[in-house]
Each structure stands twice: as C-alpha cells, then as structure tokens.
C-alpha cells in the first residue's frame, strides 16, 4: 500500500490524564475538556493545523479515549475527513514483541514511527493537546526550511521572574539555540519553549530509536531528545511567536484562559474570521434570552436558556440558567443547569452538572487570604444539593 507523500505530518500529544484538572477530567481525556462555550481543548491544535494547510494529523492518546474518539469521529468538523491523510487517533497497542503504554512524549512518537513513515514526510510537527493559542504553523515551517534546521522550537517571551517555570532556550542573534535549560533556577534568557517542535523526520526517527534503546532515558522531548541533539551539534533554531498562548494544565489557568476571551478587545479573539477555531456541533437550537435575563460582557452559546443574570462569564451550549440565579466571573460548561437563586462566583461548573436552588459556589478573591483563595469547581456530572455552600478553592 502506497500513501501519497506529505511534506509534514502533525502529531498531537494528547495522552495526559490531566490529573491537575481533577474532577473536570474524570472519565474524559484532558484534550476533551470544554473551553470557551462551545470548544474543547483539542480544537485549538486541530484548527491551527487545518488553517496552516496540514491535512495529516495523528492524535496520541491513552487515557479514557472513548469521549475523545467520539468527539474526533472521522474529522469532519475540522475538514480532516480526507481519504489521503486525515485524522487518526493513535492509542497504544500490543505488538508481537512487547506491548506497553506510552511512557513519555518521545516514546509515544516512537511507538508510531510506522504511522509517520507511511507518508514519507520531510518534517514532523509535534504539538500539545492542551495549549490555547492560534498559530500559523506554515510560517514556522518556512523559517525551519530557510534555516535548514534539524529542529525548530517555537518560543514565547515570558516575564523574567516566571522564566524558571519553563524550558528556556538560549539562542544566538540568528536564533540558533546554544543552550537549553529545563526549569532553570537562574534563567539566561526569557525565551520559553511552547512545546511546539518541527523536526526533520530523518533525524528525529534516528534519535527516537536510540532513545528507546537507552534504559536511562525518561523518553521525553524536553529532557532527552532536545539536549541530545544539541550535544551532537545538530542545527536547532528558535521560532519567535507573538500572540496569545496558554498552557491550561491547572484549574486556575483553565479559568484564566476562558476569561481571556471576554471583553471588547479580548486577549484571545474567538470572533475574528481568519484563523477560526472549529468544533463539533451538536444541533442545538438558538439560545433563548428571557425578558428578566441580564447579560453583560459574557458569551452565551447556542442551545442555552438564560433567565438569570450573567456577568463577565461564559455560558456554554445547552445550559439552563434559571431566574434569579447569578453567575459572575465563571465558566459554566456544556449542558449544566444552575437553578434559581443560586450564586456562582469565580468558579467552573463542569459538564452536565446540576446546581440546585439557593447554592453558593465560590467567592471573590478580595475577601480571602491569598493562599486560601482559588477557583471553586463543581465536577462533571456532579449534583450540588439545595442551599449548599462551596468555598473558594473547594472542589466538589
């Protein structure tokens, strides 16, 4: 069987359980976590691929893949239902010699070498399934080719005081990487790796095989593959990205990123016509906004019914916000119900959750000690009984 050659194959690392997102990811893989009213995290890298002209995508997943599989389907919502390339969900499988889970990011790609080889790509784009950003990978690719690089790593300038939380790239004036520091105590630069890599497939394949044979390795791109390539004098370059980017690995960052799409001129513009983010659609009717409703600086998605008050919040598809319920600075995920006289502040309400009448969930940060306050969370499918009070930082 011969597959038409592709210039680039994208591989999305979506294997994480997202344990820090806890109740929101129970029975669901992290990339399927809802975002922004009608999206899921995986929509961002997938839509970016499509908008950058990449039509062959592998999604590497191993934790609770059912919902993700269902969501991806045959890739139609992203226009990836192609008979040549298209979208493939790649779970770990038993081989004749061995069978194992994906041990690390590099190991996940290693186990799918044969998938990539089918398309004879010049380059492979490695992406993460839980980053919120819009990016044209074709620009990065053009620079990669122009530099005759073996590997190009997208970097973002972060404030110097935060640099020690990231993988930091130290590059010369041409963008050639001299040094890589993983979460350094004393960072030499503020160029943080975004976890977006383009590798020359020939080189990467060789190093993946070598990495797999190394029992000492933790099979990770940042910890093993990149330092090895640097040590062996390969051409590694940075690609400077300017724009919005957020790793939504924690409750607080997921909440913040959702808030970042609000406003007249938001940090992340979901409304602009170019670089649109696509998502699977569930045939909801339009939303109904009742006479008594009040909605300010908020998104309300189709299929929702709003009778209550919503301020600086996101109401996702299929939600019901009853009369006299108040939602402030919160994200209400798809198909959740908030009953009358309940108050939700600085919280995330999970998919299909029900908040019965008169409940109080979360509170404003100004009333609390800094380390005692965080976003309150009601998990997926959870039912909050009447009059229940859920303090900030509490997870239900």
């Amino acid at each position: 069987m011969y597959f038409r050659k592709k210039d680039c194959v994208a591989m999305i690392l979506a294997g994480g359980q997202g344990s820090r997102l806890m109740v929101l990811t129970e029975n669901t893989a992290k990339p399927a976590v809802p975002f922004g009213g009608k999206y899921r995290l995986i929509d961002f890298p997938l839509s970016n691929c499509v908008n950058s002209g990449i039509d062959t995508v592998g999604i590497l997943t191993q934790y609770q893949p059912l919902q993700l599989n269902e969501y991806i389907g045959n890739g139609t919502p992203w226009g990836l239902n192609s008979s040549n390339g298209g979208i493939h969900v790649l779970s770990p499988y038993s081989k004749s010699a061995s069978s194992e889970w994906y041990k690390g990011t590099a190991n996940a790609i290693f186990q799918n070498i044969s998938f990539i080889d089918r398309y004879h790509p010049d380059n492979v784009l490695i992406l993460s399934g839980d980053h919120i950003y819009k990016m044209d990978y074709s620009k990065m690719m053009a620079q990669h080719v122009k530099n005759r690089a073996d590997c190009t790593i997208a970097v973002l300038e972060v404030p110097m005081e935060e640099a020690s939380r990231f993988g930091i790239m130290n590059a010369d004036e041409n963008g050639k990487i001299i040094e890589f520091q993983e979460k350094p105590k004393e960072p030499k630069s503020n160029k943080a790796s975004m976890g977006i890599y383009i590798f020359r497939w020939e080189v990467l394949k060789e190093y993946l095989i070598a990495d797999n044979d190394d029992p000492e390795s933790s099979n990770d791109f940042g910890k093993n593959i990149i330092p090895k390539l640097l040590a062996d004098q390969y051409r590694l370059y940075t690609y400077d990205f300017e724009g919005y980017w957020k790793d939504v690995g924690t409750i607080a960052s997921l909440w913040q990123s959702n808030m970042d799409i609000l406003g007249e001129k938001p940090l992340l513009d979901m409304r602009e016509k170019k670089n649109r983010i696509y998502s699977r659609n569930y045939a909801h009717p339009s939303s109904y906004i009742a006479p008594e409703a009040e909605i300010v600086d908020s998104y309300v998605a189709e299929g929702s019914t709003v009778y209550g008050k919503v301020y600086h919040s996101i109401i996702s598809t299929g939600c019901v916000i009853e009369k006299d319920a108040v939602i402030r600075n919160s994200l209400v995920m798809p198909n959740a119900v908030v009953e009358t006289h309940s108050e939700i502040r600085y919280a995330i309400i999970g998919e299909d959750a029900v908040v019965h009448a008169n409940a109080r969930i979360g509170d404003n940060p100004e009333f609390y000690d800094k380390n005692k306050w965080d976003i309150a969370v009601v998990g997926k499918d959870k039912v909050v009984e009447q009059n229940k009070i859920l303090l900030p930082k509490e997870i239900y």
Partner: protein
Amino acid sequence: MKAMGIIFSNIYDSSLGELTNQRTVASLPFGSRYRQVDFVLSNFSNSGIYNVGIITKYNYRSLMDHLGNCAAWDMNRKNEGVVVLPPFASGNTGVYKGKLEALYSAVHFIDNPDYDCVVICDSTVLCNMNFRPAIRHHLGSGCDVTIVANREGDQLRKKHPLILKANQKKRVTEIMLDTYVRPGSYVGMGMFIINRSLLVEALQDSNSRGLVHLERDYLQKRFNDKSLKLSVYEYDGVVLRNEDIRSYYANNMALLNADVRKGLFKQESPIYTKVRDEAPTYYGKGSDINDCMMADGCVLYGNVEKSVLFRGVRVEKGARVKACIVMQGTKIGKGASLECVILDKNVTVTDGAVLKGTPEHPVIIQKGEVV
C-alpha cells in the same frame, strides 16, 4: 415497509414576496439559525428515511449551497442520500406549474422497486414529527393515500390550501381546497403518504391527461369519483405554516414562546442545519437583550427586544431593535431604531436609521442592501 421521501422546494414562491426573490422557499432562513428545509430533512433523517429527492424549479443555488453533501442531516450515505431534482425540461414539459407535474418529472427517481411507499412533503410546514407512526397508520388504514393533518381550532377565519373532514375511523369524508377552517375539520400539512406503485401509475395517467395539481386534479377529483380512498393521520404537535409574509413573521415570533420551542426542538429528534463554526454570541457592556432567540456569532452592544437574530449579526451601541427578524451577517449601526422589520442577509443599517413596520405588514429589507 421501506419509505422514500420527496420534498418540494419551491412550488408556491410568490406568496413570500421579496424574501424568495433570490432563493427557494426551502432555503428561506427561519428560526434564528435554520432554513425551512432543515425541518423536513431532519424529520426524514430522524425517521430513518434516507432516500430523499428534493424537487426544484428555479433559484436553487442557495439551496444547493445550503445542502452541501448533506452530512449535517446524516444523509451523505453510501447507498442512499439526498438527490436534488432540477426541472426535467425535456420534450414538452417545460417548467412545471403544479406538484403533480413536478412529481412526474421525478418519476424515474420515484419508480425505484427498493421502496414500498413515498412520503411527499412541502418545505413550508414546519414541525418536528416522526414519520414512522404515520406510515404505520397508512398501512393499517387500507387507504390509497394518507394525508397528514392537524386541527387548527383557534384559527377559524384563516384560509388554508387543504381542508378535510373525516369520520371516526379517520377516513376522509370531504375534501375542500383553498377555504376557511370549519369547526371539527382537519387542515392538511402538505404531507402525503402513498404507495409507490400507485403513485407512479397516477403520475403516468395524469401526465397523459395533462393534469397539473396534486390536490385538485388527483386527490380531490379521484376522491369525488370514489376511485380513491383517503385517510387522515392526525398530528397533534406544534405546526408552523409559513404560507405568506404575515405568517412567516408571526411564526418566527412564536419561537419566543417556550411551549412552541419545546414542541419544535426535541432532544431525541434534533433539527439539524449547516454548521458555520461561529464563536458563541458576545453580550457587550451596555447591551440589553430581552425575550430573544439568539444564534451564535453575534456581537451585541445595543438593545434588542422580542426579536429573532440569526448568526453573525452585529448590533452597535444605542441601537434599538424591537420585534424584528434579523438574518445572518446583518449589521445594525449606532442609534438605529427598528421595529417590526425583516432584515434579510448581510443588510447594513446605517447609524441612526429609523424603520418601522407593523406585525401585519413588517418592513422587508432585501439581501445585501444598505439602509
């Protein structure tokens, strides 16, 4: 018992005036995010009827564009699916005037031995109905044709194309055309169930006699000749008939009623439409939205009341929109004031413009205009 479907996309365009100047009634936008044809297509899909022909006459570009590959209705199938049937203008046919003629031009599509019966539907009568019980009723009735109808008790003074009287066994006893609803009578919903072989025979016969209208020349005439047994299948759910501009306007406004929404949009049988990948609707500071149907992709800074907004509408600060239907991509400028206006797609309302109609005679602004 296997059924196929036929949809008429534009037999009676003229009654909807400017709204159907450049489109079929089937592709006329309705209900904040749909086209009229979405309802009947979704009904077919939800009833497991996947072989569907859509009969078109003219102006069908917008319909073709909307349908695409029909994946949205789960109709892009290997062996079945939607077939658009443009006028079969060979020989002496020309463009047809009535449904009987139109059906005859699709006789090759209909005469398919894989199917036992044909469900024929207009695209202007909107409901969320499963055809399975209706087909079971048709089989059990022993009649030649089953007419799907409902009772419109409170609208006695309204004229309808097809009025029926029936006995207790739902056998039709009288059939009247273009007249007023009588107490106890049924109003036809433009849906007929008929055995395929009988239909093919009837089409060939009526073509040879030069007959044109399905209701007048076939159903009524043959019924009066006592050579056709008719049965009524009574549908008791929500039915919206968009027969003219006044009813089209009123039916859009009816969606603001929770019972109408509940009867039309059901979780177990969704109404599907083309996906457009718009962001959710953004309610800006200073916006005041009351009693509205709101599709995705709108950006709202003004005041909107008792209105139906389609996807991607923009309402600027200080604008007042009351009792309007605002179709896709229309922009309403600062301080504009609109009441009882139907704004077609991609209209631009300039800052401060004032337009006012009445519910009986809404102002209509045509596609792409600047006012």
